[in-house]
């Protein structure tokens, strides 16, 4: 019997994980994602990738990354008109092609589109509470995410980010004299885990070397904590990530390391 050969590219696992979450959302537990906007987000992302690949004269049209972006936007973005999801998909992928430093895109595409639309329009929002705080869901997310991150070799930043964020929550509770139940409840948030495992751990928009990755994760946790608790900002995690991403090219120059590639043997010129 031939051995099953598992794909080496982590994106397949990420697509499977996000697809499963979207499927769960449509069937078992309503997290707020709806079929038509989801379709628009994915179509917008894939379409923009196809157009931009032609414009930039890339040898192939790689649809894996834009599919991940489209699925992420389906799960995270809420809007009162479905076309906004299509717009989000376009903005996300266009940002990946246009906003580049040192041959790398600066912002996580889905995160950038979320923040751009939240601040640029009056019509979108994210629902951080809808992911709930039930442990089984957290466990499922964690399990799916580990699969992805093992492949993407970026589990470290997700775990370090969670550790930093948790430390800040416990410190705040200690300072306020709050019971442990409060930071524990805040940590069980599905929305926090989703951000850690599927957004900040994007290997293309985080520093290449381990030490600056840790610095970056801590800085995002600190800024998000400030925005959430002192500025009462609801999309604090995403705003913190997008605000701090421009320091990554600097960190990469100060701490040079081998450039991340999704496939073990990258196709020439197949990026972005």
């Amino acid at each position, binding site marked *: 019997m031939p051995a099953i050969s598992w794909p080496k590219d982590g994106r397949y696992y990420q697509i499977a994980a996000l697809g499963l979450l979207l499927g769960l959302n449509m069937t078992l537990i309503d997290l707020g994602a709806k079929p038509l906007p989801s379709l628009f987000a994915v179509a917008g992302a894939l379409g923009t990738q196809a157009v931009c690949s032609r414009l930039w004269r890339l040898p192939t049209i790689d649809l894996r990354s834009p599919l991940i972006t489209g699925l992420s936007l389906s799960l995270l973005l*809420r809007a*009162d008109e479905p076309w906004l999801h299509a717009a989000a998909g376009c903005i996300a992928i266009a940002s990946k092609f246009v906003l580049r430093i040192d041959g790398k895109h600066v912002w996580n595409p889905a995160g950038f589109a979320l923040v751009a639309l939240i601040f640029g329009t009056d019509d*979108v929002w994210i*629902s951080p509470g809808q992911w709930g705080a039930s442990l089984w869901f957290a466990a499922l997310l964690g399990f799916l995410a580990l699969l992805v991150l093992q492949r993407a070799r970026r589990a470290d930043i997700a775990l370090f980010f969670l550790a930093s964020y948790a430390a800040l929550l416990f410190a705040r509770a200690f300072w306020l004299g709050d019971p442990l139940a*409060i930071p524990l409840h805040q940590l069980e*948030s599905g929305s926090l885990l989703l951000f850690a495992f599927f957004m900040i751990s994007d290997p293309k928009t985080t520093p290449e070397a381990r030490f600056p990755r840790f610095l970056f994760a801590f800085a995002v946790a600190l800024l998000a904590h400030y925005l959430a608790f002192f500025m009462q900002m609801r999309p604090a995690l995403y705003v913190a990530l997008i605000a701090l991403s421009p320091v990554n090219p600097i960190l990469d120059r100060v701490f040079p390391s081998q450039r991340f590639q999704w496939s073990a043997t990258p196709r020439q010129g197949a990026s972005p």
Partner: protein
Amino acid sequence: MSKAFSRGIKAAVAAVAITTQLTPPAAAFCGFYVAKADASLFNKASKVVLAWEDGKTAVTMASDYEGDPKEFAVVIPVPSFLERKDISVVAMKTVDHLDAYTAPRLVEYFDPDPCAEIRDGFLARLKAAPPSAPAAGAVQATRGVVVEATYAVGEYDIQILSASQSDGLVAYLTENGYRIPAGAEDVLESYIKQKTHFFIAKVNLGRMEEAGHRFLRPLQVRYESRKFMLPLRLGTVNAQGPQDLIVLGLTHQGRVETTNYRTVKLPTGMDVPLYVKDEFGRFYTAMFDRAAERQDRRAVFLEYAWDIGWCDPCAAEPLSNDELSALGAPWIGGGAKNRNGGGSDAFVTRLHVRYDAQHFPEDLAFMETRDRENFQGRYVLRHPYAGKTACRAADDYYDALPDRFAQEAETLADLTGWDEKAIKARMEASGQSFTSSAPEHSWIRRWFFNQDR
């Protein structure tokens, strides 16, 4: 809530046992409205109207206090200092009106004559009624406690405090006749460190008698703060068992949801057995209990979300602009654009939360979404056709009824956790039979029509 506690401090939010008269049944497109489940169904249910527009908040708290007014006292953490103009009393009937308008409702339909299509050549339609249109101080320091201001508002004597230490605050409150439950000090300390002010109020019996009020009117405070939240924590200290809170959100843009707990839509739109009409309250509380359990008692339930200019069917008439302004939505008055065809510039969200310290350790944090999709808790009674029939379609109709009734029984059992057999027995007793009620001579007609085909 312990007696001592309820006589002493009524923290943050507390509630009302109201006797609201049922509005007379009104015809509407979505069936005939017959009953509603307002906040009076739930013991220990508080009602809070939370009007929010871009950082400007008005919180109106309806108290359920039924004891001696001289024992009444509230301590409410507020995010900023309040001036006299930021505090007022609101007529209880205004809050009750919003409660009734947004309450989950029971509607009923009457099946048309199954033969009517053949006889008249068109489907009998429910008469559609148009949805209702919109109706037109001195500073005194005591162990770190600063009395920032003292106000007389209606029947209440109010102080705004700031504090630097919770033990000083507890001592001050105790000295002034506020009974603070054990365990409240830690919670107060947490609020103090977050630079919260405290709004404390007691009843002035003299002014109450003078004004001739028999009941305590809801208090409203208005402030500007990015904190869009409701403090629950003081209310859970020493509370015995979970408490119910109805949050009535008034916003400009769209639905309100909680950001640190899941907001879940209540099951809605189901057909239920006819006997539920006589015990809608019991049905609703049982269904809510079960829905809360199914979400591990960690969810906030959406019971109503609607453009406040209209309703369909209406459990109560929409509120007037004056009422909405009184509840803290001043934007409604000026330049009201018509949205959603005949709608208004205000959107109402009714959230129902059953909370205790174990499942809701944190205060409720909210956000306003741009979602203006209408939602209502609505349960449907379908009365079988009761007139005389004489056609083949009638046989099919009567043959299908037992399955339909069985489905209703199953739905009710699933929603409430009641025993399905007992439900079916109640249905039989109330005339919903599980054997076909086609007239006895129908085999002749059946045979006749079969020959015909």
